[in-house]
């Protein structure tokens, strides 16, 4: 096979700090190449150079044997390179067809040639088995469908090389399965794929070859068959990790901390009841659209609830968000950027956000800046947040894992009784994931309850005392730790019912 893309001593520095160091690598045409590494290992920088988003400081790239120096994303596109970013590059106010053609509309007499555009889009969508009209607004598509639109865009450009950056973070298992089928198909058509992901099982399954980066250097490369997940982790972090999940250090206590009874909201939830005991980590599993995040929002008071009761520590939970926070709830939402953090504000300001009123001194609620600095500094240390000066560095500048630690830290400042963690490890690298798991364990050990919502079944079975499964807004059943079975849990998530008494008990 021929080499499609090669790097020769490629180097990129940001203000003198190298992000990619003298990397030399060949990508063979027709391969699926898995690229793994911790956050900050240089994966994104490397891909951004390929995609023309940034320019190398030194070294050379060659595309099909020719020197390749893209000055802009447009140059990369023109050569046949498609880059599917983690944050999808779609315009929600345009249709699918318009998104695919947005930089080069087919035109007739200066007008967009809609029939041609529609026809071409319909063909592409058919190839990807996406059964929606080309004129559908992207706004109304599910995340998985949006991803397919991005791929359709790549196919439309007849891309030789398609780069996927964390493509599965917002997909349901079913959508993920469809994505993998699509990737297989692309490969069969002779496309070359660079696949970047933190989900190492997926990488191993999909890839022909695996490339491991660490601190901007290529530390290992080889056939996928030669790697197993522990080996990949060892290569990534440069040492062996004890395991993917920390040992649980405590048992749930007997007293019920939180109970939900008969939660019903037409169109969203139907008669949802469950309990969480003090010191318990309750996993909540369900496919996208099963109502898991919706339920969390209702419990937290963000969305209306028509019927049903909630109680925390024996007291009924009512009122708006503020009242529920005061009662002892904490909510780490699934959308860290939009709902969790003040991205442009300093880390310290994020950490103090929830508890800010505690730092007010009468009469005018003057800030006790000394205590504020001490407490936020303490929290940074407790949470092992890797940052510079937390009083000046904005949250935006942190890695995904450290951002998530800031979000959890801001809630910890108020010592909540029940934590709702919605997809807390999304977009977080292996090392930080482990820290977040350990943190959940620490919370439980201290007597808090944790509702752990995730679409990664593996992490639920790894961490939880119990797993509850939802489907179409109903609780389908639950499993105790001893009875965890991937097959049964998935089956239930797809709608197979189990006696409810196993859960509510």
């Amino acid at each position, binding site marked *: 096979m021929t080499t499609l893309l090669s790097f020769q001593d490629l180097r990129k520095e940001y203000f003198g700090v190298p992000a990619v160091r003298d990397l030399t690598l060949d990508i063979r045409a027709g391969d699926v190449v898995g690229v793994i590494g911790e956050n900050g290992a240089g994966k994104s920088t490397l891909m951004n150079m390929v995609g023309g988003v940034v320019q190398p400081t030194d070294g050379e790239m060659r595309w099909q044997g020719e020197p390749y120096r893209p000055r802009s994303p447009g140059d990369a596109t023109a050569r046949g390179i498609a880059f599917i970013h983690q944050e999808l590059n779609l315009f929600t106010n345009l249709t699918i067809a318009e998104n695919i053609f947005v930089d080069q509309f087919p035109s007739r007499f200066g007008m967009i040639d809609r029939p041609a555009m529609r026809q071409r889009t319909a063909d592409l969508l058919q190839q990807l088995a996406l059964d929606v009209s080309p004129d559908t607004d992207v706004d109304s598509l599910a995340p998985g469908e949006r991803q397919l639109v991005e791929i359709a865009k790549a196919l439309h450009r007849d891309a030789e090389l398609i780069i996927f950056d964390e493509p599965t973070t917002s997909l349901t298992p079913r959508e993920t399965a469809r994505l993998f089928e699509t990737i297989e198909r692309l490969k069969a058509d002779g496309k070359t794929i660079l696949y970047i992901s933190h989900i190492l099982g997926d990488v191993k399954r999909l890839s022909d070859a695996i490339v491991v980066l660490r601190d901007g250097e290529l530390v290992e490369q080889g056939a996928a068959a030669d790697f197993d997940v522990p080996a990949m982790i060892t290569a990534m972090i440069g040492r062996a990790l004890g395991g993917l999940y920390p040992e649980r250090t405590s048992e749930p206590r007997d007293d019920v901390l939180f109970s939900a009874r008969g939660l019903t909201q037409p169109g969203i939830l139907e008669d949802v009841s469950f309990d969480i005991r003090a010191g318990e980590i309750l996993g909540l599993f369900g496919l996208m659209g099963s109502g898991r995040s919706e339920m969390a929002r209702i419990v937290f008071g963000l969305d209306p609830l028509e019927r049903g009761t909630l109680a925390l520590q024996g007291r009924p939970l009512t009122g708006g968000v503020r009242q529920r926070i005061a009662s002892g709830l904490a909510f780490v939402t699934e959308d860290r950027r939009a709902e969790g953090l*003040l991205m442009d504000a*300093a880390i310290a*300001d994020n950490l103090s956000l929830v508890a800010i009123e505690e730092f007010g001194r009468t009469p*005018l609620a003057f*800030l006790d800046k000394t205590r504020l600095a001490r407490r936020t500094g303490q929290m940074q240390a407790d949470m092992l947040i890797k940052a510079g000066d937390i*009083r000046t560095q904005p949250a935006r500048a942190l890695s995904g894992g450290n951002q998530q630690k800031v979000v959890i830290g801001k809630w910890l400042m108020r010592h909540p009784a029940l934590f709702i963690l919605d997809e807390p490890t999304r977009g977080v690298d292996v090392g930080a994931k482990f820290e977040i798991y350990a943190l959940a364990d620490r919370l439980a050990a201290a007597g808090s309850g944790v509702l752990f919502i995730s679409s990664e079944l593996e992490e639920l079975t790894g961490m939880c005392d119990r797993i509850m499964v939802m489907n179409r807004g109903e609780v389908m059943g639950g499993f105790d730790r001893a009875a965890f079975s991937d097959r049964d849990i998935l089956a239930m998530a797809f709608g197979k019912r189990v006696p409810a008494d196993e859960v509510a008990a």
Partner: protein
Amino acid sequence: MTDSGPRATVSGRDEFPAAPSVRQRAMRLFLSDYFVLYLSLAYFLVLVPFLPTLSNPANLANILSNMWPLLVVAVGQTFVLTIAGIDLSQGSVVGFTSVIGAMLLATSASPDVLSNAPIWGLIIDEAGGPLANVPGGVLVAIVAMVAAGAMIGAANGLAIAHFRMPPFMVTLVTMIVISAFAIFLTQSENIRNLPESYIQLGKGDIVSVYFGEQAESRIPRRQIHSFITYPMLIAVSVAILAHVLLNSTVFGRQVFAIGTNRRAAEISGIPVRRVIVLVFTISAICATIGALLYSTRLEAGRPTLGDGNFLLDVIGATVIGGTSLFGGKGKIIWTVFGVFFFVLLSNTLNLMNLSSFHIDMVKGAVIVAAALLDVLRTRLIRGEAS
């Protein structure tokens, strides 16, 4: 959000070390929080040789006295911009509350002028307003003005916070309605004959300076220069209070949080609606205090105070200072410098004896030039930070 800027620069300016090169020091100056102040001072120094009157004590006193009312209003706008809002109704609040104050306090009024007005006979008549010559009346009138202003601001805030209506449209409508209402109240007329104690607030000197010969028995008024005045005292107090509020209180943090990410602030339990209502109320109260200063220096309650380009001056000065229109970024000290720059600009344009036809052109060009420097600066700051 955290106050970081000043420290490095202030110390850097005083030292004469071998270490930082001229270029580095210029850079630090350029990047500091005080940039707009330096820019204004540079502008001042460049023009002094050509406009000798610029540095006259009388002219300096003028620049300062012109600054105070605008500053008070711009301080209010700073709060609103910081939560990513905009308040177009400030000008109308200035006009409206100036009428409220004057109709309560006027010591007499002429039926020739006001007899058509709906307030005639109801609130004001030949003998003046209900608080004319009442001990403590001025204070009561000011309280009434502030209450009226606060109500308008709270109404803005309620519509914006509770019904999620866009601030631009809400305050635009308020501007139309309130200014029409003020004009309706007096049927276009201005209310004069304000009590001396009230006028003092807008014109009174506390400390004056005399630069002339010592021996003269009668000191000509034009050689006495206001040094510390009531408006200065009022404006500086408002600015300091606002600075403390924005920088050192829980409320201030909540304002920044909402301006940076309203959704995240809501989920973190910030009382978003309450803060928004308060911010618009503060903005209107600042406009009311501005009304106090404007109407007392003009010795009349005027429904049309704050009309026309006033609003553009207020927002322009605030934004030139560095406060962002997109929220999450604002400082009172920036606004002080922005206002200083704007007032200095008008003053110099006046002194240049430009034909009135040229003034608008020069003004436009200077605003763009200042904004350009700021763009350059922001780019450098970003470059250094990342």
